C-alpha cells in the first residue's frame, strides 16, 4: 500500500489495523443477515401455505426452517452489535464528522427494526403453542419485515457514505461536521434505493440457495424426500425470480456508480485510458503499474452497458479529476467485482437448468447435479461478500465520498497495540463461533425435520379440530 505524506508509521499501523478489523468483523457478520432476511421470506411463504392449504407438511417445514433461522439470527445479533460500537471505538473522528447524519440512520434502525424483530422473534421461536396460528403467522411476517427494515437503514447509512446528499458542512478544519439539511434527501440519496434493492435481492438469493442446498442434501441422502421436494420447489421458484431480478438491479447499480463514482467504475473494469469502444472483461488481471488489463473481453461491452451504444467511451482514470483519487487496490476491486458477476450469471444458469432437469425427470437421477446444488449455498454467500468488497474497496481512499478520507476518520486516542489486541480477540472468538455454528447447523441438518411437527399442538391444533 502506498504511503501518503503527513502520516508517520504508527498512524499508518492504526489505519491498516482498524481497516482490517472493520473488514473482518463486518465480513463475518454479513454471513448471517442475508441468510436471515432470505430465510425470513421462505418462512413467510411456508407458514402462509400452511394456513392456506392446512397441509401439515408446511407446518413441519415452517418449524424446521424456524430452527435454522434462530441459530443464524443469534449469531447475526451477537456479531452485529460490534459494528455499531466500532464506529465510535475505531473511527471516532469520522463519527464526530457524520454523527448528525449517519447516527440518525443507526438510531432509526434500532427503534424501527431491531425492536420489531427481536420482539416478534420471541413469539416466532418460543410461541408456537402459546398463540393462535394467525397471530403466529403475523409474528413471522413482522420478524421478516424487521429484518428488511434493518437492511433499509443500514443501506441508507452506507449509501450516504457513497453518494452524500441532503447535508451541509458546518465549521472548518478539525471542527467541521456534516449536518442534515433535508432528511428525505439524505434517506433517498442518489444511490440508496438501487443499492437497497440490489442488496435485498442478494439476501433473498442467500436464503433461497440455503434451502435449495439443504433440500438437495436430503435428496442426495434419500431422506425426508417429501419435505425436501416441497422445500426445493418453493426455494427454486424464489431462486429463479431473484437471479433475474439481480441481473436487472445489478445493471442499475452499475449505472449509479458510473454517474456518481466514476473512479470506482474505472477500478471495477480496470479502465485507465478513456477511449471509444470501452471493453467489458469476462475475466482478467490488472497490471496497475503498466495500466493494462490482460484477459478475455467483449469489445465495446462497457460502453454499451453504460451508454447503450458500443462507441461512446467510458471515463478512465486519465480523464477523471485527480482529486477523486484512486482506490489503493485496483486489481482487487476488479477481481471481486468480476467474481460477483460470474457467480450471478452462474446462479441464473443453475436455477433454470435445475427447473428444466426437474421437468425432464433428471434431477432425482443425477447425483452430480444434486451435489452441485448442495454446494450452491456458497454461491450467493461469496457473491454477497464480493459485492460489498467491490463497493467498499472501490470507495477508497474516501470514507465519505469526496468529503472525508479514510485515513482522516480514525480515532486519535487509540494506539496500534490496542487495535491489534482487539483484532486478535475478534479473530479468535469468531473462529470459535464459526466452528460451533457449523457444528450445530450440521446437528440440525442431520436431525432433520421433526415428524411430530406433522401434528400441530397447543393452540395451533385448534383449526384442525374445528374442521
Amino acid at each position, binding site marked *: 500500500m502506498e504511503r501518503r505524506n503527513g502520516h508517520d508509521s504508527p498512524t499508518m499501523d492504526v489505519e491498516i489495523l482498524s481497516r482490517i478489523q472493520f473488514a473482518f468483523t463486518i465480513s463475518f457478520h454479513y454471513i448471517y443477515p442475508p441468510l436471515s432476511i432470505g430465510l425470513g421470506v421462505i418462512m413467510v411463504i411456508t407458514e402462509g401455505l400452511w394456513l392456506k392449504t392446512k397441509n401439515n407438511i408446511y407446518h413441519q417445514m415452517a418449524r424446521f426452517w424456524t430452527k435454522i433461522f434462530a*441459530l443464524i439470527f*443469534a449469531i447475526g*445479533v*451477537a*456479531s452485529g*452489535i*460490534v459494528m*455499531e*460500537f466500532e*464506529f*465510535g*471505538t*475505531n473511527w*471516532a473522528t469520522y*463519527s*464526530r464528522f457524520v*454523527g*448528525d*447524519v449517519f*447516527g*440518525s440512520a*443507526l*438510531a*432509526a*434502525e*434500532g*427503534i*424501527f427494526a*431491531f*425492536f*420489531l424483530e*427481536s*420482539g*416478534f*422473534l*420471541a*413469539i416466532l*421461536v*418460543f*410461541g*408456537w*403453542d*402459546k398463540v393462535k396460528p394467525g397471530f403466529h403467522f403475523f409474528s413471522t411476517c413482522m420478524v421478516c419485515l424487521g429484518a428488511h427494515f434493518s437492511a433499509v437503514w443500514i443501506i441508507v447509512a452506507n449509501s450516504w457514505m457513497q453518494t452524500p446528499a441532503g447535508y451541509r458542512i*458546518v465549521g472548518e478544519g478539525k471542527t467541521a461536521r456534516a*449536518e*442534515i*439539511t433535508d432528511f428525505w434527501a439524505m434517506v433517498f440519496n442518489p444511490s440508496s434505493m438501487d443499492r437497497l434493492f440490489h442488496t435485498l435481492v442478494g439476501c433473498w438469493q442467500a436464503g433461497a440457495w440455503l434451502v435449495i442446498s439443504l433440500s438437495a442434501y436430503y435428496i442426495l441422502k434419500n431422506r425426508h424426500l417429501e419435505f425436501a421436494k416441497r422445500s426445493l420447489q418453493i426455494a427454486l421458484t424464489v431462486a429463479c425470480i431473484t437471479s433475474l431480478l439481480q441481473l436487472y438491479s445489478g445493471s442499475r447499480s452499475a449505472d449509479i456508480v458510473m454517474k456518481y463514482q466514476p473512479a470506482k467504475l474505472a477500478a471495477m473494469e480496470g479502465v485507465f485510458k478513456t477511449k471509444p469502444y470501452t471493453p467489458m472483461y469476462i475475466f482478467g488481471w490488472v497490471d496497475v503499474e503498466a495500466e493494462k488489463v490482460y484477459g478475455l473481453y467483449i469489445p465495446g461491452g462497457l460502453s454499451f452497458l453504460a451508454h447503450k451504444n458500443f462507441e461512446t467511451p467510458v471515463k478512465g482514470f486519465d480523464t477523471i479529476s485527480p482529486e477523486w483519487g484512486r482506490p489503493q487496490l485496483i486489481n482487487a476491486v476488479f477481481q471481486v467485482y468480476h467474481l460477483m458477476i460470474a457467480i450471478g450469471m452462474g446462479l441464473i444458469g443453475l436455477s433454470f437448468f435445475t427447473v428444466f432437469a426437474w421437468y425432464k425427470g433428471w434431477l432425482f437421477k443425477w447425483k452430480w447435479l444434486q451435489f452441485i446444488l448442495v454446494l450452491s449455498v456458497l454461491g450467493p454467500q461469496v457473491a454477497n461478500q464480493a459485492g460489498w468488497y467491490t463497493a467498499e474497496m472501490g470507495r477508497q481512499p474516501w470514507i465519505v465520498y469526496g468529503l472525508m478520507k479514510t485515513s482522516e476518520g480514525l*480515532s*486519535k*486516542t*487509540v494506539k496500534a497495540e*490496542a487495535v491489534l*489486541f*482487539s483484532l486478535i*480477540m475478534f479473530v479468535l*472468538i469468531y473462529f470459535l*463461533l464459526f466452528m*460451533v455454528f457449523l457444528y*450445530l447447523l450440521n*446437528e440440525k441438518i442431520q436431525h432433520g425435520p421433526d415428524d411430530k411437527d406433522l401434528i400441530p399442538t397447543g393452540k395451533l391444533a385448534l383449526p384442525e379440530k374445528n374442521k
Partner: protein
Amino acid sequence: MTELGLDLNIVWFVLVGVLFTGYAILDGFDLGVGALHLFTKTDQERRITLNSIGPVWDGNEVWLVTGAGALFAAFPIVYATVFSGFYIVIKLLLFALIFRAVAIEFRSKQPMKWWREMWDIGFFLGSLLLGFLIGVTMGNLAYGVPIGADGEYAGDFLSMLHPYALMMGVTTVALFMMHGSIYLVMKTEGDLQKKIRGWVNRLIIIFIICYATTTMATLLYVPHMVDIFKHNPSLFIIAILNMLAIANIPREIHKGRDFFAFMSSCFSIAALMVIFGIGYFPHMVYSNPNPEYSLTIYNACSSQKTLGIMLLMAIIGLPVVIAYTVSVYYIFRGKVKLDQMSY
C-alpha cells in the same frame, strides 16, 4: 429552543437516559440471572434459569443497541470520545456480550456434561463481566475522566481502574444479582424457588452495603455529583423513594407477592438512574481535572434539526416499542415450563 419552547438538548438527555434505564432494568435482570447461574446445581435447574430469560434477553439487549444509536445520533461527540477513549473497556464489553449470547444459544444444544459446563461458565463470566464493566464505565463518567482541550480522552485503560470506578462496578453487579434473583423467584416454582427465595435477602443486604459505600465515596470524593442535591433539598425525595422501594422488596418477598417485589426492584433501578442523571446534568462527560473541557448536552450535540427529526422518530417509535415489549412479557408470563423449543 423549538417553537414548542422545548429545549431539545434536555429532551435528548432524558431520552438517552430513558433508553439506558430501560436497558439497565431489562438486561439488568438478565445479567443478574447469568451471574447467579453457577449457583444453581442440577442441569434441570440451570435450564430453568436460562429459559426464564429465554424469550426476552435478545429484546432486552436491543435497548443497549438503540441507546448507543441514540447517543451516536444526538450526541456524536460524546459517543466518539467515550467509545474511542474507553477502547479496551468497550471491546471487553463487546466480547462479553458476544460470548454470553452465544453461550445462551448453544448450551442446551448438546447433552454432554463438559459441553454444558463450558457454556455455563461462559454465560456466568460474560454476565458478571458485563455488569462489572457497565459499572466501571458509569463510575468513570461520574468521577470524571481527563479530557484534553481537543475534546479527546487523555487517559488510558489502567487509569480507568481507580477504586471509585471499581466500587461502582461491584455495586452494579450486586444490584443486578439482587434484581435477577427476584426475577427468578417470580419465574420459578417448587424447591428451586424456595432456594432462590433464600438468596434474595442476602443479596439485598450485599447490595445495600455496596450502595452505602458508593454513596459515601460519592459524597466525599465526587462532590460535583451531589451539588444539585445540596442546593435543592427537595430532590432528596428521590433518594428516599429509592430506599423505600428497596426496603419494600423483602416485605413483598415475605408476603409472597413476587411480582410487586420485582416491580420495586425495577423502580429502584430507575430511581438510581434518575439520581445519576440529575447529579450529572448537564454533563455528558465530566472532565477531571479541567472541568471546563467537559462535554455537555450543549457543546457535544447534533444540530437542532437532527434532534427535532429524531424526536419525531422517538415519538412514533417508542410507544410501539413499549407496546410490544409489554405484550411479549405478557405472552411469556408465568412460571418457566421446559418444552421442545426451550434452550
